[in-house]
């Protein structure tokens, strides 16, 4: 049954929950439903985050909720030929790809695949039916619904999303690519939920792409839980290339067991409103946790990266590097927090946020925070907001480069520091290419990124001469 609301608020969502409860709970396990009830009570108490909250001071959700959203709770997980509507543009990227269309899992053959090595990849709704004990063991264990309002909202309405289980000692050679497509002819409110479990000593590369195919208003509130068991290695890429009318909120919760490594890379190329919340817990020693981010925003786009790294156990390493270039009236917010608890001795934690403002109307707000309760630690943070280095500029100009080329070269180099962290060669080249195009102004908001919509022919780009 479809439901429409002229504007969205807490009470309406709760009313909606009670009305649609049956269609949501019948697909889930009893434990998941108990977690759902708890999350609902949290959401009932806290509601949507307001600007009064420290982490939402510069990010206002209210105007985004003032839209007539459509809700659809009927099970839309179905078989269809994904290639008909979407072709990935990274030609050489050989991946095991999975597609979510408007929050529901769409597949070619089966909703849940078990590979020869024991890896299970597929729909979360289906996994709750087939492997309930596996889902119950992990579901909701990392997501802090008591702390994050939108994580509570997502948990209350959980239906479908991606489920990956990599058993102990398995290395997935092929990256798993998750494509999250929004294709609707009316405004939609989506809340996909992903659960990723990486067993002891296993290795996985995950590429997570967010796209919109239409220019309709959409509000997506994704929650991803990643569990890295002992010695596991997780490489997580997020590429966000959404339409100007889309609001995207990602809540990523990572829990690392001993000696595991997690690398994440968030590339925001386009998007009307983007907020990435990343919460990492390091309760066991000898872990590495590195998180990179790049945002290239213009017009009146808003991007907000919120990172919380909790060093609970000793001997862990964490690193954050977030860089951004802001044009027109764009706004970027970075709020990072490194927490080093009393027993987390020998912690090494770095945090860095660098921004370049290209206009006087762009705004950057950065809050790199450290909270440290252990003494034998090495922690540093830095933040800069500025423009391109005039000396470097002079050097390039003195070598005969025109100002435009020199600027572009420097911006590409600035972004390069993050792009080079991408370890999949094909993806790195493609992103590099996109970044270059984006910075040259060839990739405007309208021709969305990698999507060449339904044709394999390269899209003819409208070059915005005013940007050159």
């Amino acid at each position, binding site marked *: 049954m479809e439901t429409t609301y002229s504007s969205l608020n807490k009470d309406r969502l709760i009313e909606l929950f009670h009305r649609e409860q049956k269609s949501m709970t019948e697909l889930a396990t009893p434990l998941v439903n108990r977690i759902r009830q708890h999350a609902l009570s949290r959401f009932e108490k806290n509601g949507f985050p307001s600007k009064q909250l*420290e982490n939402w001071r510069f990010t206002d959700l209210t105007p985004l909720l003032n839209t007539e959203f459509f809700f659809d709770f009927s099970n839309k997980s179905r078989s269809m030929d994904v290639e008909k509507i979407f072709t990935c543009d990274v030609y050489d990227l050989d991946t095991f790809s999975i597609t979510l269309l408007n929050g529901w899992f769409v597949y070619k053959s089966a909703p849940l695949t078990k590979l020869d090595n024991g890896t299970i990849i597929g729909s979360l709704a289906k996994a709750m039916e087939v492997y309930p004990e596996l889902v119950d063991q992990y579901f909701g264990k990392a997501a802090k619904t008591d702390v994050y309002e939108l994580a509570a909202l997502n948990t209350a309405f959980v239906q479908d999303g991606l489920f990956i289980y990599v058993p102990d000692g398995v290395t997935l050679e092929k990256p798993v690519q998750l494509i999250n497509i929004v294709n609707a002819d009316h405004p939609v409110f989506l809340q996909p939920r992903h659960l990723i479990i990486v067993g002891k000593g296993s290795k996985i590369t995950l590429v997570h792409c967010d796209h919109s195919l239409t220019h309709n208003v959409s509000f997506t509130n994704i929650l991803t839980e990643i569990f890295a068991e002992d010695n596991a290695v997780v490489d997580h890429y997020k590429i966000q290339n959404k339409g100007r009318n889309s609001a995207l909120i990602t809540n990523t919760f990572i829990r690392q067991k001993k000696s595991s490594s997690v690398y994440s890379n968030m590339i925001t190329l386009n998007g009307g409103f983007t907020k990435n919340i990343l919460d990492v817990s390091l309760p066991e020693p000898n872990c590495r946790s590195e998180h990179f981010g790049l945002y290239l925003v213009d017009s009146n786009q808003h991007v907000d990266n919120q990172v919380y790294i909790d060093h609970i156990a000793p001997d862990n390493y964490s690193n954050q590097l977030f860089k951004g270039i802001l044009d027109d009236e764009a706004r970027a917010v970075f709020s990072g927090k490194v927490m080093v608890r*009393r027993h987390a*001795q020998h912690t090494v934690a770095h945090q860095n946020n660098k*921004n370049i*403002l*290209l*206009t*006087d*109307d*762009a*705004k*950057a*707000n*950065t*809050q*790199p*925070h*450290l*909270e*440290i*309760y*252990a*003494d*034998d*630690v*090495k*922690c*540093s*943070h*830095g*933040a*800069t*907001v*500025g*423009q391109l280095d005039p000396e470097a500029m002079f050097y390039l100009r003195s070598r005969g480069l025109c100002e435009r080329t020199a600027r572009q070269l420097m911006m590409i180099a600035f972004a390069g520091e993050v792009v080079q962290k991408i370890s999949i060669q094909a993806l790195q080249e493609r992103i590099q290419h996109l970044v270059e195009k984006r910075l040259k102004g060839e990739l405007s908001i309208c021709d969305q990124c990698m999507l060449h919509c339904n044709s394999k022919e390269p899209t003819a780009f409208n070059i915005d001469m005013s940007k050159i």
Partner: protein
Amino acid sequence: MKNDSDKILQEVTGSDYKYGFYTDIEMDQAPPGLTEDTIRFISAKKNEPEFMLEFRLKAFRHWQTLKEPEWAHVEYPPINYQDLIYYSAPRKRPKYDSLEEVDPELLETFEKLGIPLDEQKSLAGVAVDAVMDSVSVGSTFKKTLGEHGVIFCSFSEALQKHPELIKKHMGSVVPYTDNFFAALNSAVFSDGSFAYIPKGVRCPLELSTYFRINAANTGQFERTLIVAEEGSYVSYMEGCTAPIRDEHQLHAAIVEIIAHKDAEVKYSTVQNWWPGDKEGKGGVYNFVTKRGICEGEHSKISWTQVETGSAVTWKYPSLILRGDNSTGEFYSVAVTNNKQQADTGTKMIHLGKNTRSTIISKGISAGRSNNSYRGLVKTSKKAENARNFSQCDSLLLGDQCGAHTFPYLDVGNRSSIVEHEATTSKISEDQLFYCLQRGIDMEGAIGLIVNGYAKEVLSKLPMEFAVEAQKLLSISLEGSVG
């Protein structure tokens, strides 16, 4: 130099808070509690002009609508504002003409404090205004200052003699609506210092005020106002101490500085309120609002602070850089030991073109204390070519303490450059080893390294404060070794 530091270290080893004495002076107090009547009582007692009473009442009514802020990284039991005594003055408060007339016990107090109040200290070249339990008890060097047209007196005296200046400037930088404690101060403040430097005058002396809480259960609410007219210069110092008491005392002050075109104000403070004992019993709650405004072009204000005292500190000396080409500086050393908590930092608000600001903050935490830096650097859209550099380092001595850094950078135009750097670490093993190997004991070595670490800030203090600050650093860290 080395001998000096050795001597200082020797002097301080084994000594605790040495300002913890209590002077038995008859006090004239308001009954405890806070109502409009208390405010009328204070105002009447001080024979204030009508506009002042109105200001106080407005502030009080506004304060009643406010809630005590909870965002700071500090914890303390709730304060019952009705239990406090809001006015406490030494009785027989005369208008002193010379020091002979002063109550000898009072003089003894200042003797113990070691403040250069009496004439023999004239060599120190300091003009002192001492504020004891909220009332100013004496200023020296009126004559020298008078010749240059500099006004330096207690706030109440200024209200009597220069009401127009007070009316014009008071509340212009920190309005009573600013925050909870500013509103409270505006309602009940009893005294403070006022300095006015006329156009083109370079103040011949360093101005200095000492604040002391003496009576039990009193809150100290003083208010400092410094106005530097075009092209003037002044260096102002403030020091503070309190006796050892079991219960907590509240100190909520306001400092306002106004620098006009080409003026420079250098404000230094050594804050040494009683920090409470090792178990966190007693100590002063220091909730202070300090703000300066660089009103005119090419004006400059610098804050230098050494924070070693107080059980709980909540203090953000801030600057509004409104004039084009104005400069703001903030140098801070904050030391916390035992169960002290400090949440301190600065705000630099760049409004004018080519404004520059520097923030150097050094935090040292020991024992079971918590030390936070919280700072905001904001450049508005019109603040072209604004430049800020911030460095906030934290040093941890011991594994039970905490050091936190909460910077906020809000940049609103493309031509400004804002940089923030911070590190947190413990004392370097290599440096310690080097000192020990040269025959310096552990405590001495730590003192040496900490002093070196804080040197960048200490060197900004006026000479005589620098020596005191060095001593204070060592005292505060005593017993934190091992």
